[in-house]
């Protein structure tokens, strides 16, 4: 979760990292009550980079200019995001600008200090001069001094810059952050340091023990972030091209990724891929609710417009397979029963379908369902891959509905593809 600049600076101020006097602007008219002297800088508060180049940062000399500039910035989307807040800040004359960051390196499993003697908006220069120190053991200020020296700093700057790094690290640990970045850290002609821009990414897993951060975000009026935070248990696999007619439903992200790969390898086109909790124990329902998850996933996927076939791939214990089969059967049957257009004749057809398996698949089952669903929504066919479990009686119950049971993944994928292709014709 990314904090906005003014929120990051609030945390900088608390921990003792020098920041300029500033004021939060919620509306252009707030500038009439500006407490900091002109000239000031107005900055769009959006959680994306590239504000300066996009025109989200303006220098103003007086109230009239400031209000006009503020109006313009409030109406300027940056990578599709409009600011809810601007930050008005004093101007600062920097002699030098540095880049500093403390970031968690997931590959190393250690925090890393980064620093560049060429800070600011010239990205190539920043990256070219980037230096790195891995905080292998418990942090101690020498790690910060090591970075300062690698950055080529001399004299008093070693102490002042490493002092900032220490505070950044302190903040990083105290608030469970993924990233603390200052760019640029300005150095004045007298050697004073000042954080002109800041960026903080909090770790979502740790938000639960940092209510102060959670409150910050909920008041930042950033819809997208809020959505991410209250993520429902049902996750969706994301990929780029979702213009297909196959729905996938798996327990576990990686199993879903494999299933998606297999569909693509067989030249199928998936449209949606939903995941129910892979670690949930199906026969221990007090702990989690895989049944509810599966029910809502079924609903979501059958309501999706273009999906013609749904591949369910759920791997768990035999008991779970039984449970999955039951849940799907109940869901599908409830859909069929609720459909008002189902006539008595159709009902009879369905019943005969149960007793004559060969007849059932080609005509009555599919036919019935298609006819009734035509007036509601096009109902997708189901390929269900579960392994083990006593599911024969469930299969019987669903005999009149176009459901294909498979226990082999490759075969289930092949069946899914053939249904998807025939739907296209």
């Amino acid at each position, binding site marked *: 979760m990314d904090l906005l600049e003014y929120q990051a600076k609030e945390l900088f101020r608390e921990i003792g990292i020098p920041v300029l006097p500033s004021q939060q602007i919620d509306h252009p008219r707030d500038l009439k009550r500006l407490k900091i002297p002109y000239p000031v800088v107005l900055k769009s508060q959006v959680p994306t980079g590239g504000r300066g180049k996009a025109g989200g940062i303006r220098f103003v000399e007086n109230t009239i200019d400031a209000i006009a500039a503020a109006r313009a910035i409030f109406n300027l989307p940056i990578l599709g995001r409009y600011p809810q807040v601007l930050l008005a800040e004093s101007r600062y004359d920097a002699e030098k600008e540095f880049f500093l960051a403390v970031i968690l390196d*997931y590959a190393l499993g250690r925090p890393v200090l980064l620093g560049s003697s060429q800070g600011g908006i010239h990205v190539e220069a920043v990256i070219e001069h980037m230096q790195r120190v891995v905080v292998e053991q418990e942090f101690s200020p020498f790690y910060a001094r090591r970075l300062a020296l690698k950055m080529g700093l001399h004299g008093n700057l070693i102490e002042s810059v490493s002092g900032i790094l220490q505070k950044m690290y302190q903040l990083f640990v105290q608030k469970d952050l993924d990233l603390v970045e200052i760019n640029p850290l300005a150095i004045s002609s007298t050697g004073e340091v000042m954080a002109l821009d800041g960026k903080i990414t909090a770790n979502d897993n740790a938000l639960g023990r940092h209510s102060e951060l959670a409150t910050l975000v909920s008041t930042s009026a950033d819809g997208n972030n809020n959505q991410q935070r209250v993520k429902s248990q049902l996750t969706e696999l994301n990929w780029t091209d979702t213009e297909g007619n196959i729905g996938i439903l798996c327990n576990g992200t990686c199993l879903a990724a494999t299933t998606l790969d297999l569909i693509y390898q067989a030249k199928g086109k998936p449209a949606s891929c939903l995941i129910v909790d892979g670690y949930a124990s199906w026969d221990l329902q007090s702990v989690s609710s895989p049944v509810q998850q599966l029910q809502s996933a079924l609903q979501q996927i059958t309501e999706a417009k273009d999906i013609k076939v749904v591949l369910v791939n759920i791997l768990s214990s035999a008991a779970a397979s039984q449970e999955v089969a039951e849940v799907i059967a109940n869901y599908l049957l409830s859909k069929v029963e609720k459909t008002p257009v189902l006539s008595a004749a159709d009902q009879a057809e369905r019943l005969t379908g149960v007793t004559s398996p060969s007849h059932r698949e080609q005509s009555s089952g599919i036919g019935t369902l298609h006819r009734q669903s035509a007036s509601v929504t096009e109902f997708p066919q189901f390929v269900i891959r579960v392994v083990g479990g006593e599911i024969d009686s469930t299969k019987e119950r669903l005999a009149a509905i176009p459901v294909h049971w498979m226990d082999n993944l490759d075969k289930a994928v092949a069946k899914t593809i053939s249904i998807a292709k025939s739907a296209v014709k």
Partner: protein
Amino acid sequence: MNLTPDSKVLVQGITQPLASYHAARMKAYGTNLVAGVSAGQGGQELHGIPVFDLVEEARHQRGPFDATIIFVESYWVLDAALEAIEAGIPQIILVTGGIPPLDMVRLLRKAQITETLIVGPSSSGIIVPGKVLLGTQESNFYSPGSIGLISRAGTLTYEVALALTQAELGQSIGVNLGTDAIVGSSFHQWLRVLATDENTQAIVLVDQTGGGSEEETAQYIAKAIDKPVVAYVAGCHTPVDKQVGNASAIIAAQLSGPVTNASTAQHKVAAFKQAKVPVAERPSQIPDLVRKALKK
């Protein structure tokens, strides 16, 4: 690794429903589950397993332990693991997921010094088919044999175990490294363990998109592993979460503008292939590749 049916095992957080449920299953599988810990619940018995308030208390009466399985809530995992290390438990399995990464950093620094083996977080644990089950793995997909299975994936692991079992390639061990962004033991560490394990003839690695130590893993296999190794990587069509990976790369990407998602699954496949590790295109292809590799 030192796991036999005699290994003495502890469960921390045993009175939580999930832990209690799996404790019963582990015991039924033959695991020598001798004690549980749950602060404030000491003195009772659960499935015939005595429960203690503290790990050191459990250790005095039932220990020393060879391994512990931790089920406590995510913000308490670091504390539970440090308590286990303090009690000298050499192998720790973290079933709980979603642990704050900086807690993992602290734990891993400590574990490195004490040479404690950490598996997880978000791990379904370790199974030695037919003998021992440590964690929440579904044992019905496994069968005893000589293939070592190391996985960084969740339920996909079962798909691979099932494919091997159906092809009559039983497994010497199934290790789930966990799916959190930062995990304790790596492919590298387990490859080294299985390279000298006399019950293991061939090794299967199951990975997914994300993370990023594949080059190191691949080179290590090429250099140091004499046993046949086969890999499978899921997620060639799913982009990786931009946060996971190398720090400098993340910063560089963020500075240069919006991060474009690129899957690392293809990258992993390429790294394995370059190290001449056969890579399966689908789970069902793994048994064939293992057989072929064993014949060489």
